């Protein structure tokens, strides 16, 4: 057992941190304030290969391990959680399922553009009447000749505005009367594909979330991922992977709030001494640090298990549940340590707090995470 990062992983952390501090830090507050995402950043992210973190070199990816992936998302989110979200979704629930379940033809068609960020990808399951109840989706595609015709809508789609390759879950009905749930690949320029208005959100405002509307979209068989009735399983396994990214995003936000708090409490003088010397504050710092460390270890373990091809549903749910929870707690305490200054928009503390909250909701709420963990435990996976 070894708790040290490899030299390679250390270099990943250093490089991404430097990139994030130099390129993203100046624009992160603007993304949040204006709820706009500036396209030139995509080009910058592409230069350092952040769109193909784990894809093999032959598709133009960086071919890194899952811990390096978690480190990358953490470091990006430490500076800009909106960008962290875009990359997490793109890499783990957009690119990964195509790589893992796609045919060679699908991989060659999509992955090279995905790896360079020319096409940004996403994954959408949620509908107005289907959230935690994932089986309740109402999108439906009906076979017509060789193809299918898709109707329905999705809501709260991350990367909805800039994504051009979106994986969605849909019910299907074939000519011979079979039905079930499929995961399919949609492209932005398909006829009948419509992007809704941007949602006005509490946090991660730099990532433009929209609804998607599908009006009689003709979906060729080549766009079905895996076998037709495999959709639900693909989705669930994809989300296991995605949750490592969301956990890493939460971790990055918490880390940022924690670093600010340490620095501030050392410099802020009250009653003639730095507030860090008061037990009330120093205990807060100790708790923050411990929670962040525990979350980080849970994330790395889940990533490690994925790389060593072990089942990691439980571990991934655990790290997502825990990291998102402590991110909310840490960012909240960070504001408390900063007092009135923390409440002002001059400092990024309130942004961290708003950004952190959603990590307890998307890609499975904390309650669903606990359900998954409990199911695994009761099945004997103690």
């Amino acid at each position, binding site marked *: 057992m070894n708790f040290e990062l490899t030299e390679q992983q250390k270099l990943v952390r250093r490089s991404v941190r430097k990139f994030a501090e*130099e390129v993203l830090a100046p624009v992160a507050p603007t993304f949040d304030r204006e709820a706009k995402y500036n396209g030139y950043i995509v080009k910058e992210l592409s230069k350092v290969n952040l769109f193909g973190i784990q894809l093999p070199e032959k598709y133009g990816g960086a071919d890194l391990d899952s811990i390096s992936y978690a480190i990358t998302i953490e470091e990006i989110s430490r500076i800009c959680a909106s960008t962290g979200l875009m990359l997490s979704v793109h890499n783990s629930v957009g690119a990964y399922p195509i790589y893992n379940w796609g045919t060679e033809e699908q991989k060659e068609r999509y992955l090279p553009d995905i790896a360079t960020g020319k096409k940004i990808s996403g994954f959408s399951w949620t509908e107005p009447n289907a959230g935690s109840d994932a089986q309740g989706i109402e999108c439906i595609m009906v076979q017509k000749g060789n193809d299918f015709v898709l109707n329905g809508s999705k809501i709260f789609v991350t990367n909805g505005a800039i994504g051009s390759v979106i994986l969605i879950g849909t019910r299907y009905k074939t000519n011979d009367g079979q039905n079930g749930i499929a995961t399919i690949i949609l492209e932005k320029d398909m006829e009948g594909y419509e992007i809704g208005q941007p949602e006005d959100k509490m946090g991660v405002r730099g990532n433009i979330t929209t609804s998607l509307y599908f009006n009689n979209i003709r979906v060729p068989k080549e766009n079905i991922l895996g076998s037709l009735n495999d959709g639900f399983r693909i989705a669930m396994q994809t989300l296991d992977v995605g949750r490592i990214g969301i956990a890493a995003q939460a971790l990055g936000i918490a880390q940022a709030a924690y670093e600010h708090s340490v620095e501030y409490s050392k410099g802020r003088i009250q009653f003639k001494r730095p507030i860090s010397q008061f037990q009330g504050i120093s205990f807060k710092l100790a708790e923050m640090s411990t929670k962040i460390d525990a979350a980080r270890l849970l994330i790395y373990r889940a990533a490690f298990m994925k790389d060593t091809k072990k089942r990691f549903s439980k571990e991934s749910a655990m790290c997502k549940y825990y990291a998102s929870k402590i991110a909310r707690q840490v960012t909240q305490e960070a504001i408390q340590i900063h007092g009135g200054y923390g409440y002002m928009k001059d400092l990024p503390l309130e942004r961290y707090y708003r950004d952190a909250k959603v990590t307890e909701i998307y890609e499975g709420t904390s309650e669903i995470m606990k359900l998954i963990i409990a199911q695994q435990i009761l099945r004997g996976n103690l």
Partner: protein
Amino acid sequence: MDRGYDLVRRWKKLSNINEYRDVWVFTEIKDHVEVHECALQILGKAREIADKLGQELISVVLALDAEQYLPVIEEHGVDKIIYLNHQDLKHYHERIFTDLVYDLIEKYKPSIFLFPSTEAGNALAARLAYRCRTGLVSDVLDLELSDEFGNNLLIGDKPAYLGNIVAQIICPNTRPQMCTVTMGTFQKTKMRKENVEIMKIDYKFDKSKIKIKILEAPTRKDKPSSTLSDAKFVIGGGHGLVSKENFDKLFDLAKLTNGQVGGTRRPILNGWMPEHLQIGISGESIFSDLYLAFGISGAIQHLVGITASKIIIAINKDPNAGIFKVADYCVIGDANEILEGLLNYFRV
């Protein structure tokens, strides 16, 4: 090319170390117009050292029309001036100057040789130190003679880690003991020795040794390499100025007061000012008489670049801003308002 071995014998164990004597100062001529101020300052300190050693202070001048500068140098306490006069010496030239001065060192064996820390001074000193296989201490903050580590050894105080640490450096076994000195480190003193000896050396140089060809008549340089480091008055801005519009007012103030604008990393990232105006780590250090810091919080990366400014005034609305710890005068208030207030005065 030599393999080093032969020369090494000499610097490793300098057997004739006692033959080296006198304090030399490379008395640079600035822009073929005047004696460099820094060289005159060094002469002041070198005079003290020479007196303590009971040795001579010798000024070395290489210039076109060198004679015209000698009277000024004579006013600054030298015992002797060694000079060369030639058209080729109008500007510093790495080959010509290095060869000629090296010949002088070989012949006259100075014990101490000091240079102004200028583009030419640094280059020449480094090249000569290599040829002599001796040590060179750059940008000394102070010089003193001490018997602690050897008889009358020169100790040079050299800043390291961007001026956070000072290291005391000696050069015990080789000669000359060489240092470069930045502008403003020492005070020039006016004094005239009786019977200053003037020694003219004939210019002789084989130009075929020069490898760099100048293709067309050079022009006076239009792009200053750095103005921040020579500026007497620097006006700095940080993230606290909030907008480019406000930051631009720094340039207005600079224009009205003959100041120079600089800043932290953030304004560059925000697109408010060009990269070469950065002060601090990975930017320039300043040596101004006065530094006005508007809306700068005072990250260490910035602070290391301003510590050499004589007076620092900081304006920031956060009373805990780190910049106040290193400031002589602290104004707690909105940097933009104070800036506007100053501008109103100067605009009238």
